[in-house]
């Protein structure tokens, strides 16, 4: 599938940065918040002129790829039917300051993206764009081959979808370290040395490859026993 139209659910800090990157990459961009167009119209017109402010349904129906950029505690406000059959990038993390207490948001025995996938069961979920702070996403995007280019971790269970998303990430201005296992999303969640870090390909790959040796990796391994 060629991706021409990008839809972003969530018109907050990350959603707006991603909209800007997608516009720069030449995509047609639609974006929505939890409310009406009127609520975000001026914000979108001023911060990312060219992006179309809209509502969730319209965004989903008119996009080739969807980015979920809302607080994790809110994803169940979206009807799973709405995203049926779609390719969706999960840019969300569990973040206690906005999401509240973990047990109320997530089951203890699996990772956030697995739970998002279980909820949107007829949707293909790939995790990406979640581990870099929004201002780094905005400032550090670079064309391919630029020596300052940074990398993002892309992971999901569906091979073809992951490859498509990796290509999309490339067009958005980042190298990619790719895994084909959605559960590996945990490697970039809060607590990981990758969370909030902005790293080049080699550095990111090194930590991913040696994840089990990191403090966080050991904790994760211990809790899975």
């Amino acid at each position: 599938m060629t991706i021409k139209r990008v839809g972003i659910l969530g018109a907050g800090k990350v959603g707006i940065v991603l909209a800007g990157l997608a516009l720069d990459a030449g995509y047609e961009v639609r974006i929505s918040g939890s409310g009406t167009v009127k609520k975000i119209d001026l914000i979108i017109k001023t911060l990312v002129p060219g992006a179309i402010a809209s509502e969730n349904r319209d965004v989903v129906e008119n996009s080739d790829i969807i980015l979920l950029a809302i607080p994790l505690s809110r994803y169940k406000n979206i009807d799973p039917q709405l995203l049926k059959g779609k390719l969706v990038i999960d840019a969300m993390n569990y973040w206690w300051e906005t999401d509240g207490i973990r047990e109320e948001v997530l089951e203890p025995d699996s990772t956030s993206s697995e739970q998002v996938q279980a909820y949107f069961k007829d949707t293909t979920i790939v995790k990406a764009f979640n581990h870099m702070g929004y201002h780094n996403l905005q400032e550090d995007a670079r064309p391919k081959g630029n020596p300052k280019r940074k990398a993002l971790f892309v992971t999901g269970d569906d091979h073809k979808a992951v490859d498509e998303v990796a290509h999309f990430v490339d067009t958005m201005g980042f190298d990619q370290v790719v895994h084909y296992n959605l559960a590996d999303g945990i490697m970039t969640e809060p607590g990981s040395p990758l969370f909030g870090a902005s790293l080049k390909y080699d550095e990111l790959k090194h930590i991913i490859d040696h994840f089990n040796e990191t403090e966080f990796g050991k904790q994760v391994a211990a809790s899975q026993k």
Partner: protein
Amino acid sequence: MVDVNKLEFGIETFGDIVANEDGSLKSAAESIRQIIHEGEIADKYGINVIGVGEHHRPDYSVSSPETVLAAIASVTKQIKLATAVTVLSSDDPVRVYERFATLDGLSNGRAQVMLGRGSFTESFPLFGYDLTDYDDLFNEKLSLYDMLRTEKAVTWSGKFRPSLKNQEVYPKTENGELETYIGIGGSPESIIRAVRFGYKVIIAIIGGQADRFKPYIDLYHKAAKQLNMPEYPIAVHSHGFIADNEDEALEVAFKNIKANFDRIGLTRGWAPMSREQFDHETQVGSFYVGTPEVVANRIARTIDLLDLGRFDLVYGAGNQTAAQRERMIELYATKVIPRVKEILKAKEAAK
């Protein structure tokens, strides 16, 4: 266009624990007394505002900033007394009004309210609030505060606080209105909210290039025009450290700001700050670190770029000694501020 003669400069502290020369830490009580002394120094040198943060944590000494500001009021003449910030969502707007109106009275009208979320959230469980209600709490309490600010009898009801019926709240201020800012981070929605209430805006730029806030400031002005609300020059606050010697400034700042950010990061799951990140922040980002000349040039650039009316430097992050903190305030007041004005005036003349 920046009006150099009206520009305001402030310092802000979060109430970090002060270090002794031997590296051991002073008590919270000693750290609080140090802030009073620093307020005095800042006033003596003509700094316009001092802001004191509200935190409820072991690594900060101040949970009750108005009390600290009241003590500063009693030893100063000119300086405005601000909170940086008052966590309105977990406070009672009636109490907020009362405390500030009292401070305003005893300081001859120098109180300045800065309302916001603050960079921490520990006040929520402490006072029995749910973090996920954050937005609703802030909106509701802001609406009540806004009515109280008129200093007339208030009739109000909401979800998080008992209703008020035709209730007067005291004391009234001499100016008839408390000067009020809303402190915001990176969320565009909070800009729109500040515009709706017609409050002044102070933006916390704690990381990354100031340049990325330019569109947000355009948004503020556009929204104010569209909603027909008052427009004020925007204020910005960022971290910094100034010393006579560049290497010393960088070394002290790296050690302390890193320690401070990493400690916060630990509870939030952020990776520790690398030297590369720190260098990026001091060169083109939002840490204003170095000799007075370096810092003045960087502040002047930000003020000009974002068309600001006020710049506040956050000082004392981590565990700095009293000497380091005091010298920084002195350099900021006597060298940096005049130099910033000079640079901006030269720029203006060249235009």
